[in-house]
C-alpha cells in the first residue's frame, strides 16, 4: 500500500515537472501581465483602489469604445459572409478553372502583415489613390467627385481583406471534409447550390465558422497599425487610444482601464463561444 502511494506520488512529481515549463511561460508572459494590468487599471496613483481610471476612460473615450465595437463587429460579419461565399464556391463551384483560380488567389492576404496591409490600403483607398484613379479612368466618376476611404470604411475594408482568407481557409477545409454524397443527395432531390450551402453545409460547419470568427474578432481588437495608419482622426479604435495614453502622458492607469474594457469585449465573445460548446457537448 505504501509503495503504491509512493508510485502515485512520484508520478505526480514527474507529470508536474513535465508541464512546469509551459506553466511558467504562460504564468510569466500571460497571467502575470494580465493580472498586473487589471490591478493597475483599478489602482490610484497615490495608492488604494479606485474606479477613477474607468471613469476617465469612459469620459474621454466612450465614442471610441462604441466605434471599436461597431468596426470590429461589422468586420466580423463581413468576414463571415465572404469566407462562407469563398468556401461555398470552392466546395460547390462547377467551373473547375474558376475554382482553381480562386483557390490559388484567396490565400494571398494571409501572408501579408497587418502593417503592410494598412500601407497597401493607404495607397489604394486615398482620395487620389489607385482605386479612385481606376474609377475616374473608367469614366464612372469625375476627379472632383471622388472621396477618400481612409476613415472607418478603410479600417473595415483592411480588416475584411486581411482576415477573410484566414476564416475562409478554416471554413473551406471543414466543408471539403464533409461526405460529398451529402451534397449529392441534396442535389439529387433538387436543392439549388445556394440552398445546399445554407441548409446542408453551413449547419454542419457552423462550429468551425464560429471559431474562425472569434479568433478574427480577437485579432482585430488588438491591431494597432491599421487604425493608426488608415484613420488618423477621431473617433478611432481603443488600441490607438491606449498607445496615445502611454506615449503622450505615460498614463498607464487609463491605458490599462481601456485594455480591461477590450478584454471584457473579447471575453463576451469567448463566453458566447464556450456556451455554444457546452450546449453541443451536452446534446445527447
Amino acid at each position, binding site marked *: 500500500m505504501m509503495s503504491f502511494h509512493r508510485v502515485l506520488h512520484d508520478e505526480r512529481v514527474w507529470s508536474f515537472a513535465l508541464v512546469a515549463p509551459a506553466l511558467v511561460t504562460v504564468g510569466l508572459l500571460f497571467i502575470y501581465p494580465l493580472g498586473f494590468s487589471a490591478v493597475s487599471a483599478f489602482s490610484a496613483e497615490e495608492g488604494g483602489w479606485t474606479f477613477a481610471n474607468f471613469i476617465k476612460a469612459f469620459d474621454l473615450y466612450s465614442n471610441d469604445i462604441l466605434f471599436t465595437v461597431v468596426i470590429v463587429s461589422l468586420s466580423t460579419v463581413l468576414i463571415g459572409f465572404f469566407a462562407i461565399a469563398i468556401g461555398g464556391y470552392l466546395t460547390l463551384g462547377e467551373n473547375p478553372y474558376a475554382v482553381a483560380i480562386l483557390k490559388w488567389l484567396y490565400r494571398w492576404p494571409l501572408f501579408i502583415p497587418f502593417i503592410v496591409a494598412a500601407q497597401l490600403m493607404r495607397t489604394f483607398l486615398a482620395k487620389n489613390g489607385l482605386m479612385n484613379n481606376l474609377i475616374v479612368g473608367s469614366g464612372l466618376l469625375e476627379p472632383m467627385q471622388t472621396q477618400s476611404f481612409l476613415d472607418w470604411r478603410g479600417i473595415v475594408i483592411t480588416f475584411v481583406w486581411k482576415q477573410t482568407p484566414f476564416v475562409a481557409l478554416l471554413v473551406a477545409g471543414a466543408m471539403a471534409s464533409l*461526405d460529398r*454524397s*451529402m451534397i*449529392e*443527395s*441534396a*442535389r*439529387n*432531390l*433538387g*436543392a439549388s447550390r445556394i*440552398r445546399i450551402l445554407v441548409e*446542408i453545409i453551413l*449547419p*454542419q460547419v457552423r462550429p468551425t465558422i464560429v471559431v474562425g470568427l472569434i479568433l478574427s474578432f480577437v485579432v482585430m481588437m488588438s491591431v494597432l497599425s491599421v487604425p493608426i495608419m488608415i484613420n488618423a482622426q477621431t473617433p478611432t479604435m481603443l488600441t490607438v487610444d491606449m498607445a496615445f495614453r502611454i506615449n503622450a502622458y505615460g498614463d498607464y492607469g487609463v491605458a490599462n482601464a481601456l485594455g480591461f474594457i477590450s478584454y471584457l469585449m473579447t471575453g463576451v465573445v469567448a463566453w458566447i463561444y464556450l456556451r455554444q460548446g457546452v450546449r453541443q457537448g451536452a446534446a*445527447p
Partner: protein
Amino acid sequence: MAGESLTVDGVKVSYSDVQVLAGVSIDVAPGEFIALLGSSGCGKTTLLRAISGFVPVDAGRVLVSDRDVTNAPPDKRGMAMVFQSYALWPHMTAAQNIGYGLRLRKVARIELDRRVAETMSLLGLDGLGSRLVTQLSGGQRQRVALGRALAVEPQTLLLDEPLSNLDARIRQSVRHEIKALQQQLQITAIHVTHDREEAMVMADRIVILDRGNIAQIGTPEDVYNRPRSSFVAAFMGADNVIPLTAKRDEGALRVSASDDHADAVLSIADGDEGANLVGTGDGELAAHFRSEAARLVEVSDRPQGSLVLFGKVIQTSYPGGIYRYTIDMGGRNYLVDDPKKLAVGDAVGICLPAQSLHLFPANPTEAS
C-alpha cells in the same frame, strides 16, 4: 407512384484518360428491378452515376420513357438515389431528412407531414421521426435514406450498394423488404452491388459488368445456369476450371480422356439436361463447375452422361450429416460433400453431370 422505362444507349464515360464505361446499353422495363453486378472497378457505380446525372457521359444517351435526359440535371430525371453511406444530414431529424425533398417541392406543411408520416410507417420507422439520424441504428438509418428517396415519389429508384454497411443478419431481411416495397410501389429500380446472392435474390434481371463492358444481361436463372462467358461463369460461382479436349458429335460432345479425367459423352441439349456450351465445342475447352454440383464415385465408375475426374482424398471432415472431403486433382484442391465415409489417401472419382458443366472455348478469340 409508377415506374417508367429506362434506356441506356451506348453510354461511354472516362475519368481523365481512363475509359470506365466502353459503350454500355441496357433496356429497363417499367417497374423492373435491375441489379448491376460486378467486382470493384468494373464500372457499375459509374454507370449508376451516369444514369443519375452525377457523371457526364462522353457519348451515348440516357432515356426515361423515350425522353432524352442525357444532359438533364440529376433532379430533372424523376430519379431518387440511395447512397452507400446513406448521406443523411446529421443536423436534421429523421422526419426532416425524409421531408426535405418535399420541402424543396414546396409541398404544403400539412400535406408534407402526412406524406412523411406515411413514408415512415411504410418503412417501419413510426415514432422515430423526431430523433436525429445520429441517434438511429444502422438499419434505421438505411430506412431513413430509403424513405428520403421514396418520399418524392420517384419513377426510378437508384440504389448504390445500400446494404453494404449493414451486418449480415439485417442485410438478409432488408433485401426482401426493399424488393417487396419496390413491387408494392411498382417503381423501376437499379441496384448496384458486388454481392452475387444479393443480386440474385432481389433482381428481375442481372447486368454483369466486366471492365466497363456488359458481360451478360439475364434473369438470375439465366446468368447462374447459362453463363455466356468464362468470366460470368467464374463470377457466378462456377470458378473451378479444368481443361478438356472435345469434339462435337451431333447433339453431344465427345470428351477425350486425359491423366486427369476419363473420356465421356456429354449431352449439350438445351434445358436442364445438357451442358451449357458456348462456341462450337470442338477443340480445347475450359470447363467450369461448382464444387457443390460434384459427387464422389469409384475411380472405375463411368456414370452415363457425366464427366469423371480422378482425384485423391487429402483431408476429411464431418460438419454434420455429411462428410466433407478436400480432393486433390492435378495439384488443385476441391471441396466435395458426400455421405460415404472415405479415408485420407483414397483414390476417388469426382463425378460431374453434364448439366453442371459450363464449357467455353479455351481461347476466347475462337468463340465466334
